[in-house]
């Protein structure tokens, strides 16, 4: 099946290695992604997802993150609805101004789909983005390490082959 998603990207907070929570200073952003999955059995799918987000800093710098992840989903069904519980993991190509780094990313989430026809379903996703931005020093120093926490709320269209 092929899934296309588009929606809002909500910056939540940054967390330091010491556990302190701080504001991301990012604006509300936009997110979109394309996902291909195949059924392993009646309730489980495995696939690949590529997408991207943008959001703006207070001085209008743009943060871009382009994650490429492998995605596993377990589907709960209550016809005509489906509720995939998913987790994605992969790599997150992150750019801010001239800074660039490839970060790991984990995206747990839940979706709700309404099956419009045997081929098409429409729904909404709630994906939590957890992406560590870690440094060992000396530049950038270790105390610049942060865990990024974001929320994706997106609308989704699903097509069954």
């Amino acid at each position, binding site marked *: 099946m092929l899934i296309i998603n588009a929606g809002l990207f909500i910056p939540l907070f940054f967390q330091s290695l010491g556990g302190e929570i701080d504001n991301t200073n990012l604006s509300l952003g936009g997110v979109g992604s394309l996902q291909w999955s195949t059924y392993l059995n009646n309730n489980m799918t495995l696939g690949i997802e590529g997408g991207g987000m943008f959001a703006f800093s207070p001085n209008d710098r743009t943060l871009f993150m382009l994650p490429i992840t492998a995605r596993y989903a377990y589907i709960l069904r209550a016809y005509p609805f489906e509720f995939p519980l998913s987790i994605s993991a992969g790599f997150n190509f992150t750019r801010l101004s001239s800074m*660039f780094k490839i970060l790991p990313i984990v995206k747990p989430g839940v979706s709700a789909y309404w099956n419009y026809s045997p081929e098409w379903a429409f729904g909404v996703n709630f994906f939590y983005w957890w992406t560590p931005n870690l440094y060992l020093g000396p530049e950038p120093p270790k105390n610049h390490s942060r865990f990024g926490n974001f929320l994706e709320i997106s609308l989704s269209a699903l097509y069954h082959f």
Partner: protein
Amino acid sequence: MNVIHDTVRGYIRNFFSFFLLVVGGILFFACSDDSEGIFYSLEQEEKAVDNSLPNSVVITGDMLKETIDSEERYYVCAGSLFYRTVTVGDTTHWRKIKSPIDLGIVSGLAKVGGDIFVSVSNGSKHGLFRLNSTGTSYETVNLYNTREITRLFALNGNLFASAGTPLDDTPELLWWNGTNLVPTGITQYLIKAGAWDGTNYWFAGPSDLFQCTSLPGENSWSSVTPFYSYGMSSPPSSELEGKTYFTDLFADPDYPGTLYLCSSDGYILKTEDSGTTWISSSDHNKSFKSITKAAGMIILGAGTSVIRELPNAILEDDLNTIERPGGNFSRLPDLYESNVIRVFGFGDILFGGTTRNGLWRGDYSTDVSSPVWSQE
């Protein structure tokens, strides 16, 4: 059916193996040479306080602080010439003075003998103009239109002009004799900086340093030879040996005979006895573009980098300890990521002129270790 499933699973397994190999390879080879963390940078960022000067302008020339018409003003070359009042408040609007040459870029600004001189060029038309008595527009008379003036220097009450461009094979230094710009005798050198140390006139080209003890007079300086040139067999000081790519000079008015020289290949040099002896920093691996003094410190503008402070240069002759400014400096990425090509010090106020992020102001008056930065 099982055979088909096994085949599909085999494809999936191979696909994910390939995917992980490619991504792992990218991750392994991707290097980051950033100086700060990406998320950390966002976390620290704050909205810059912003005055009305366009933020995308290039600072193309000098800056002045002058009292004209009973009003204390800043003037700055930012493509066009802009000015604003100082005394009314720091958020008073900048005003643009319409260029006397269509699409003219202002390259130099200097006050001599009560007149403010401004050099303007659009590449094909050139000019040297005076501002009118109220300092709000140009006088119509073009005082010099022969060649493009790239810099103006007001030294000891005298006006000097560096004429010619890097594409021009005969650049020269000119002197204003009261009615005309006349040759000084320094030709074939593109002068980028000038200073008056209380006794001597100093001029720096990219690889040359000139020292002159008197004015050129009507017949120009005779037989002017560089005080120092890169590659000369017997430099006046071993500390100068091998130094080149000079970008700016600063003579400290509080210490006559003291001169600072910076270079785009990372060195800072200092003399306290009008050039008899010199000290040099080690290679800072920075591209220094401009040097000045503010808040009792020597401060440098650096290309592809940021403003740097030399906190111990004046009293301890320490040219090696450089620091990033404090205060909210590190919360303003448009400032600390900027290419700072000009720095201007006015007491406790420092201005940093950039190549694409306009003009920034650091107010050191409250706390020298924690200046308040804002964008003009």
